[in-house]
C-alpha cells in the first residue's frame, strides 16, 4: 500500500469537510473517523510488514527518484512511531467527537494535524520537513485556541515561538542547500560526511537548523510557551500535542541529527538532560494538572533527546539504539496521551458533581498503568530502555549525568505518583489530618463504601455510556503489548519473570468477580508458587523463599476476612508475593532488578490501599525508587568496563537495601506506611516483604558482588570483606543496625496508635537483623536468618491479631480499648505468645534470637553494640506490655461489650503461627540446623550443635531443656494453685476493686493506658527528636523552594518567552562553539 494514499485521504477528507457538514454532522464525523482509521490501518499494515522482515519502504513522489523529487522512507522506527501516533490520533479523534464539542473547523484542523504528523515522520526532504512542521504547527495553533479565552493567550505565545523557530529553520535550510546542493536529508548527510559543512557557514547553518528543531521540542528554559499551551489547550489537544506531535517532531529531529558535529550533539544531549531535570523539578510544585503533565511531557521529551544523543555517541547499532529511544518515546507517547485524556474525563465528571472519574477499578488501573509506565518501572518498555541507558552511562563513567538523571526521575515520580494517588483515592482529596497520635484518628477499617461498593457491572455500564472511556483503555493495552515486546527483546520474557504481571493482568481482567474469589486465587497461586519453588532452590534461597511465598500465602489467607471487593489489594499483594518468588529465582542482573522493582513498587501500591495511606505511600514510593536507582547503578555496572571500587558498590547496595528495610535515616517512610496500610496488608509488609532487603543484602554479598570482582571462592571474598575498608564499613553497618533498634524501640514506647507501635517495633527488629548481618560471619548470618524467620512469625501473629482487634473495636488507639481478653481469648493468646517471643523471654524462640545476637556480637568483638542491643531489648518490654495491657487487660469499655472473637480467617493463620513458634521453641534444631548448613556453604562454621545444645565459643544454649525446665517450674505452682483454691472462687464484676473504698466512675477513668510511660517520656523524650524526618522534610523543602525559584522565569509574558528563546539560542551557540 502506498502510504501517499493516506495523505490524499486525509487531505481530501479535510477539504471536503465543509461539504460533508452540509450533508449532516453525522456523515461528516463518520468520514472523519474513517480517514483516521484508515491512517491507523495503513501505518499498522506497514509496521507489520516491516516486522515480518520486509525491507525499508522507499516512496517517491511525482515519478522521479530522490533527490529530484521528495521521497519518504519508512524504516521500523518510523513505522512504529507512525502507527503509534496514528493510534493516538484515532482515539483522540473519537475523544474529540464524543467528549468535546467538535465543529467542522475542528475536524478539518485535526485531519491536517494528522497529515502533518504523518509527513514529519515519513519525509526525507529537509524543506518538505519544514512544510509538514508548519502544517502540524498551524493545525495545533488553531486547535489550541478553541479552549477559551486563556487558551487564546497560550496559543499566541505558542505562535510567536513557532514563528521564530520556523524562521531559523528556513535560514538554516537554505544555507545548507547552498552548501550541499541538495535538500535531501540523506544527500546532506553524505555531504556532511565529506566535510562540506565543516566551515563556519556550514556549522552555523547546521546549528540554526538544530536549534530550530530543538525549540519545537520545548527545551528548558525556552519552553514557557509550551507549558502554557499544555495547560490551556483542551485535554484532547494536549494529549496529541504531547504524544503524537512531539514524537513526530522528535523523529524528524533524529533524521537531521547525522548532520550535527560531535560537540553540537553533546550540547544538545546535555540540554535534553537539563530539560528533563528542570522540567521535573518545577513540575513538583505544580497544582494544575494539565500544566503538570506539560512539565512531565517536556521532561520526557528532554530525556528522549538525551537518550538519543547518548546512544549516538556510544555508537550503538540501530536496533540497540531504538530499543532505548523507542522504548522511552513510545511509552511516553501512549502514557501521556492517556493521562491527558483522563484529565479531560475527570474534569467532566467534576463538573457533574460526581466523586471523580477515577475512583473505579478499571479507570484507576488504566491511570496506574500510565503513571507507572511513565516512571520507567517494570514491565513497561521505558523500564528496559532506562536500564540500557543507565548501562551506557555507567560504562562511560558518567556519574554526574547519572545523578542528574536519577534526581530528575525522582522528581517526576514525586509529582506523577502524587497525582495518581490523589486521583485514585477519594479521601485524601480533603487533606484529612493524618497526624500521629491524633485523637481524631478513629478509623473504621472496612473500605469506604462510597468508592468501593460500586458493583463492577454498574461501573462497566457507566463507562460504556461514554464510549471514549473505553477507548482510553487502548493506549494501556498498547503499553501492555509493547511491554511484552520489550521484555522479549531484553530476554526476560520467561514464566518466572513475567508471572507477577500475568497474575496482575489476570486479576484485572477478572475484576468483575467477587473479592473473595480474588482472595482465594491469590492464596492458592502463592501457595502453589511456594510448592513449586521448594525443590528448585536450596540454602538461603529456599529458606527465604518459604518465608516469602508460604508466609505470603498465609498472610493473604488472613486477608479473606474482609468480604468487600478490595480492588487493588489482591492484585498488588499477589503481584508482590510472586515477585518475591521471582526475586529468589532470578539469576541475571536484569531479572533481579526487575523483580526487585516490582516488589518494592508493589509494596507501595499495597500500602496505598489503606484509607489514609496516600501520604505515606508517596514517601514510600520515593524511597523505593531512590533505592532502586542505587541498585540499578550497581547491577548495570556488572560486566561493563567500568568497575566501581568495591567500597562504593557496597555502599550503594547497602543504601538500596536499607531503604527497603527501613534502617535509621532511611526509615521515614516505614511508620506511616505500616500504620496506614490496610491492617492485614501491614502484616504482609512487615512480616514478609521487609525481609527482602535482608535476603538481597546476603545474596549480593555472596553471589553478586564477588561475581563483579571475580572472587570465586568464598574464602577470597571473605578476606576482602574482612579487610580494610570492608571491616570498617561493616562496623558502620552494625552501628546503623543497633541505633535503628534502639531509637525505634524508644519511639515505639510512646505511641498511642497500636499500628504505629508495631510499625516502630518492626523497624527496631529489622535493626537487630541488620546488626547481626553486619558481622559477616557464620554466627552473625545464622543469627540474621534466624531473627528474620522469628520476626516473620511473631510479627505476623501480632499484626493479624491486631487486625482482628481493630476490625472489632474500630479504633487503633490503644487507650480506647481494654479488657478484650474476655471476648477475644484466642487473639489474646496469640498476642501473649508473640510478645513473649518478641521480648526474647525464654523459653520461646525469641530468646534464641537474643542469645544468638548477643553471643555473636560479643564473639565478634563488638561489646558496645551488644550492650546497646540489650538495652533496647529491655526497653522493648515497655511497649510490649503496654500493648497487651492496654488492649486486653484493664477495664473493658462499654463500647466493646457486644463484640466477638476475630473472624475465622484471621484466627486460623494465628493458630498455625502459634504452632510453628512453639515447635521451633521446643526444638530449635529443626530450624537452626538448616540455617547453619546454608550459611556454612559460604563461610566457615563458627557455631555447632552438641546434641541439642548449641555451642558457641563463649556460651551455650539448650532450647529444649529450657522449655522442659520452664514447663516444670510453671506446672508446680499451677497445680498447687488448682488444688489449693478449688472451684469456689467466682469472678467479680469489673469495678470490684480495692479503690480507696470507692467505686470507680467509668472504665475510661480507671483504665490506666493513655500516655502510659509518662515518666519515661519526661526522662528520655528528648531522644524522640525526629531528626530523620526533619532532614528529609528539609531536603524536600529545599527542593521545592528551588523549584519555586526556577518557576519564576515563566512570567507568562509571551514576549519574555520569545526573549528566552533568543537568549537560549545564543547560549547554546556559545556552548556549541558556533562563534569560534
Amino acid at each position, binding site marked *: 500500500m502506498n502510504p501517499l494514499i493516506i495523505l490524499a485521504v486525509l487531505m481530501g477528507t479535510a477539504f471536503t469537510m465543509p461539504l460533508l457538514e452540509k450533508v449532516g454532522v453525522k456523515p461528516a464525523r463518520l468520514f472523519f473517523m474513517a480517514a483516521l482509521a484508515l491512517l491507523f490501518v495503513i501505518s499498522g499494515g506497514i509496521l507489520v510488514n516491516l516486522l515480518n522482515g520486509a525491507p525499508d519502504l522507499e516512496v517517491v513522489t511525482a515519478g522521479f527518484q530522490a533527490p529530484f523529487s521528495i521521497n519518504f522512507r519508512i524504516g521500523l522506527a518510523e513505522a512504529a512511531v507512525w502507527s503509534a501516533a496514528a493510534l493516538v490520533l484515532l482515539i483522540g479523534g473519537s475523544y474529540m467527537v464524543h467528549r468535546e464539542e467538535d465543529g467542522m473547523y475542528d475536524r478539518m484542523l485535526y485531519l491536517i494535524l494528522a497529515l502533518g504528523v504523518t509527513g514529519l515522520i515519513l519525509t526525507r526532504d529537509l524543506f518538505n520537513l519544514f512544510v509538514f512542521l508548519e502544517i502540524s504547527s498551524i493545525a495545533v495553533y488553531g486547535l489550541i485556541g478553541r479552549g477559551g479565552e486563556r487558551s487564546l493567550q497560550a496559543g499566541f505565545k505558542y505562535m510567536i515561538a513557532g514563528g521564530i523557530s520556523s524562521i531559523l529553520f528556513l535560514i538554516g535550510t537554505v544555507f545548507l542547500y547552498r552548501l550541499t546542493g541538495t535538500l535531501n536529508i540523506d544527500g546532506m548527510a553524505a555531504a556532511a560526511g565529506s566535510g562540506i559543512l565543516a566551515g563556519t557557514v556550514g556549522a552555523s547553518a547546521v546549528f540554526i537548523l538544530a536549534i530550530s528543531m530543538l525549540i519545537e521540542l520545548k527545551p528548558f528554559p525556552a519552553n514557557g510557551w509550551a507549558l502554557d499551551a499544555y495547560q490551556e489547550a483542551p485535554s484532547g489537544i494536549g494529549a496529541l500535542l504531547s504524544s503524537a506531535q512531539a514524537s513526530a517532531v522528535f523523529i524528524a529531529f533524529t533524521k537531521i541529527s547525522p548532520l550535527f558535529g560531535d560537540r553540537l550533539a553533546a550540547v544538545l544531549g546535555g540540554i535534553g538532560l537539563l530539560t528533563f531535570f528542570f522540567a521535573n523539578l518545577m513540575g513538583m510544585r505544580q497544582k494544575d494538572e494539565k500544566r503538570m503533565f506539560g512539565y512531565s511531557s517536556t521532561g520526557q521529551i528532554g530525556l528522549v533527546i538525551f537518550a538519543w544523543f547518548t546512544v549516538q555517541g556510544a555508537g550503538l547499532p540501530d536496533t540497540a539504539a531504538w530499543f532505548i529511544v523507542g522504548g522511552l518515546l513510545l511509552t511516553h507517547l501512549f502514557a501521556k496521551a492517556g493521562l491527558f485524556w483522563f484529565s479531560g474525563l475527570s474534569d467532566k465528571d467534576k463538573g457533574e458533581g460526581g466523586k471523580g472519574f477515577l475512583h473505579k477499578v478499571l479507570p484507576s488501573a488504566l491511570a496506574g498503568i500510565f503513571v507507572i509506565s511513565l516512571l520507567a518501572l517494570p514491565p513497561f518498555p521505558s523500564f528496559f530502555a532506562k536500564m540500557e541507558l543507565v548501562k551506557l552511562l555507567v560504562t562511560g563513567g558518567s556519574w554526574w549525568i547519572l545523578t542528574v538523571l536519577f534526581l530528575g526521575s525522582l522528581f517526576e515520580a514525586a509529582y506523577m505518583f502524587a497525582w495518581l494517588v490523589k486521583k485514585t483515592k477519594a479521601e485524601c482529596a480533603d487533606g484529612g489530618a493524618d497526624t500521629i497520635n491524633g485523637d481524631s484518628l478513629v478509623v473504621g477499617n472496612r473500605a469506604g463504601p462510597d468508592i468501593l461498593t460500586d458493583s463492577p457491572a454498574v461501573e462497566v455500564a457507566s463507562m460504556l455510556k461514554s464510549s471514549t472511556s473505553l477507548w482510553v483503555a487502548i493506549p494501556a493495552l498498547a503499553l501492555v503489548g509493547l511491554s511484552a515486546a520489550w521484555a522479549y527483546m531484553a530476554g526476560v520474557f520467561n514464566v518466572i519473570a513475567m508471572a507477577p504481571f500475568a497474575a496482575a493482568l489476570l486479576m484485572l481482567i477478572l475484576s468483575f468477580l467477587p473479592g473473595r474469589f480474588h482472595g482465594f486465587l491469590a492464596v492458592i497461586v502463592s501457595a502453589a508458587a511456594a510448592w513449586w519453588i521448594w525443590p528448585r532452590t536450596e540454602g538461603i534461597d529456599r529458606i527465604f523463599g518459604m518465608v516469602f511465598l508460604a508466609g505470603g500465602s498465609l498472610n493473604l489467607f488472613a486477608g479473606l476476612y474482609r468480604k468487600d471487593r478490595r480492588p487493588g489489594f489482591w492484585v498488588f499483594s499477589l503481584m508482590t508475593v510472586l515477585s518475591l518468588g521471582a526475586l529468589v529465582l532470578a539469576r541475571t542482573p536484569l531479572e533481579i532488578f526487575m523483580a526487585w522493582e516490582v516488589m518494592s513498587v508493589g509494596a507501595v501500591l499495597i500500602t496505598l490501599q489503606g484509607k489514609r495511606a496516600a501520604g505515606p505511600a508517596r514517601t514510600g514510593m520515593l524511597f523505593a525508587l531512590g533505592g532502586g536507582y542505587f541498585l540499578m547503578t550497581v547491577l548495570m555496572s556488572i560486566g561493563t568496563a567500568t568497575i566501581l571500587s568495591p567500597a562504593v558498590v557496597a555502599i550503594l547496595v547497602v543504601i538500596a537495601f536499607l531503604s527497603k528495610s527501613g534502617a535509621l535515616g532511611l526509615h521515614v517512610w516505614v511508620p506511616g506506611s505500616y500504620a496506614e496500610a490496610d491492617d492485614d496488608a501491614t502484616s504482609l509488609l512487615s512480616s514478609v516483604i521487609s525481609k527482602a532487603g535482608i535476603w538481597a543484602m546476603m545474596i549480593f554479598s555472596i553471589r553478586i558482588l564477588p561475581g563483579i570482582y571475580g572472587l570465586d571462592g568464598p574464602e577470597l571474598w571473605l578476606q576482602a570483606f574482612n579487610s580494610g575498608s570492608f571491616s570498617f564499613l561493616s562496623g558502620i553497618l552494625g552501628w546503623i543496625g543497633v541505633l535503628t533498634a534502639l531509637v525505634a524501640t524508644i519511639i515505639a514506647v510512646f505511641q498511642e496508635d497500636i499500628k504505629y507501635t508495631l510499625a516502630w517495633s518492626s523497624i527496631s527488629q529489622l535493626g537487630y537483623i541488620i546488626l547481626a548481618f553486619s558481622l559477616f560471619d557464620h554466627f552473625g548470618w545464622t543469627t540474621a536468618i534466624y531473627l528474620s524467620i522469628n520476626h516473620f512469625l511473631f510479627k505476623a501473629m501480632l499484626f493479624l491479631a491486631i487486625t482482628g482487634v481493630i476490625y472489632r473495636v474500630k479504633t487503633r488507639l490503644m487507650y480506647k480499648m481494654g479488657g478484650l*481478653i474476655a471476648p477475644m481469648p484466642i487473639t489474646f493468646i496469640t498476642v501473649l505468645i508473640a510478645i513473649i517471643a518478641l521480648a526474647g523471654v525464654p523459653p520461646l524462640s525469641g530468646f534464641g534470637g537474643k542469645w544468638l545476637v548477643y553471643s555473636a556480637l560479643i564473639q565478634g568483638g563488638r561489646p558496645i553494640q551488644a550492650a546497646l542491643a*540489650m538495652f533496647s531489648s*529491655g526497653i522493648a518490654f515497655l511497649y510490649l506490655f503496654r500493648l497487651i495491657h492496654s488492649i486486653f487487660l484493664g477495664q473493658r469499655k462499654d463500647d466493646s461489650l457486644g463484640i466477638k472473637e476475630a473472624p475465622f480467617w484471621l484466627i486460623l493463620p494465628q493458630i498455625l503461627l502459634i504452632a510453628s513458634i512453639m515447635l521451633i521453641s521446643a526444638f530449635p534444631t529443626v530450624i537452626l540446623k538448616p540455617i547453619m548448613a546454608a550459611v556454612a556453604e559460604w563461610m566457615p562454621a563458627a557455631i555447632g550443635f552438641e546434641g541439642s545444645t548449641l555451642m558457641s565459643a563463649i556460651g551455650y544454649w539448650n532450647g529444649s531443656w529450657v522449655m522442659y525446665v520452664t514447663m516444670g*517450674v510453671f506446672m508446680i505452682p499451677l497445680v498447687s494453685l488448682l488444688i489449693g483454691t478449688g472451684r469456689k472462687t467466682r*469472678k467479680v464484676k469489673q469495678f470490684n476493686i480495692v479503690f480507696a473504698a470507692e467505686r470507680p466512675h467509668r472504665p475510661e477513668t480507671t483504665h490506666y493506658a493513655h500516655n502510659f510511660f509518662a515518666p519515661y517520656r519526661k*526522662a528520655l523524650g528528648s531522644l524522640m527528636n525526629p531528626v530523620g524526618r526533619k532532614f528529609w522534610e528539609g531536603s524536600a523543602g529545599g527542593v521545592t523552594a528551588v523549584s519555586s525559584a526556577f518557576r519564576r522565569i515563566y512570567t507568562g509574558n509571551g514576549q519574555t518567552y520569545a526573549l528566552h528563546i533568543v537568549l537560549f539560542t545564543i547560549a547554546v551557540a556559545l556552548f556549541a562553539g558556533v562563534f569560534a
Partner: protein
Amino acid sequence: MTILGQLGAAALSVFIFINYGFLLAGSMARIRARVQGRIGQPVYQPYIDILKNNARRTAVHHGVMFFLGPVFRLAGGLGTFLFIPAILNSPLFANFSFSGDLLLVMYFIFFGQLGMALGAGQSGHPYSPIGVSRGLAQMSAFELPFILSVLALAIKHNSLSITAIVQAQQGGIANWTVITNPLAVIAAIIAFLGMSMHNPFSVVIAPQEIPIGPPTEYQSGLLGMLQTNRSIFNAAKLVLYVNLFFGGASATDGVLYTLSASVLHSVPVWLGVTLGVVTMVIKTFLLYFITVFVGVSFPRFRTDQSIRFFLFVPTLIGLAGLILARL
C-alpha cells in the same frame, strides 16, 4: 545423674534457698527497724505471713490471667534460680545450669515479671499498671549498667558460662571480679539497688501512693505465692551476683574450705558442699546488707529521676569497666 536425681537435687537446693530467702527477708526487716529506732518484727515473721496467706482461701478473682500471674511469677523465680549454678563443683547445687548460660538467666528474670504484670493488669485496678509502668521504666534503665558490667565479665573471661566465670575467680580474693574489675562491680551493684526496689528506687511499689503497686488486688494464696517467689527470687539474684562478682562459692575451694582442710586431712564431699553453702550465705548476706544500708539512708527517687540517674553515672562507670576489661 539421672533425671530423677536432678529433680531431687533441684528440689533440695530450692528448698534450702527459699528458706534462706525467708530468713534473709525477716532479718533485714528487723535490721531496718533497728536503724529506724523500732524493735521490728521477729526474724521468722515471713513464715507467719506466708502460712497465714496460704491458709486462707481466695474467694474472688478477676479472670484467668489474674490467676496465672502469680504462677508465672513463681515459675520465673524458680526458673531463674534453677538456671544458676549455686555452688561450684557441687552437682547437687549445679541445678539446670547446663540449659543455658548467663544470657538465659538474664532473660529468664523477665519471665516472671511479665506474667506478674499481666496478671495484675487483668485486675483492672489502675494502681497495678501504674506500678508496672514505673517498674518497667526503671528496669529498662538499670539494665544498662548491669549489661555493661556483665559484658565486661564476658570479655574478661571470654565466656558467658556462669560456671566458667566462677571457676575463673577461684584461688583467692585477688581473682574476684571485685578486685580485677572494680568499676564493673560498682556499676552492677548500683543496678542491684534498682533491682531490689528498696529506697531510693522504691517508687515502683511505693506503699504510700499506690498500695504496693502491681499486686494491689492480690490476696490470700495468690499473695502467698508472690511472697514465696520474693524469697527465692531474691536468693537467686544474690547468688547470681556473688557468682559473678564475688568469687561465688565452691565445694572445693574458699576460705572456709581451706580452714577445714587445714584441720582435717581430707574434707568430705558433704562438708565441702555445706561449707560452700555457708560461704554463699555469708557472702549474699553481706551483699544484701549493702542494699539495706543504702535503702535506709536515702529518700525515694521519682521514676524519671531514677531513669536519668541510672543512665548517667552508673552507665559511665559501666562503660569504664568495659574498657578496663578490654585492656
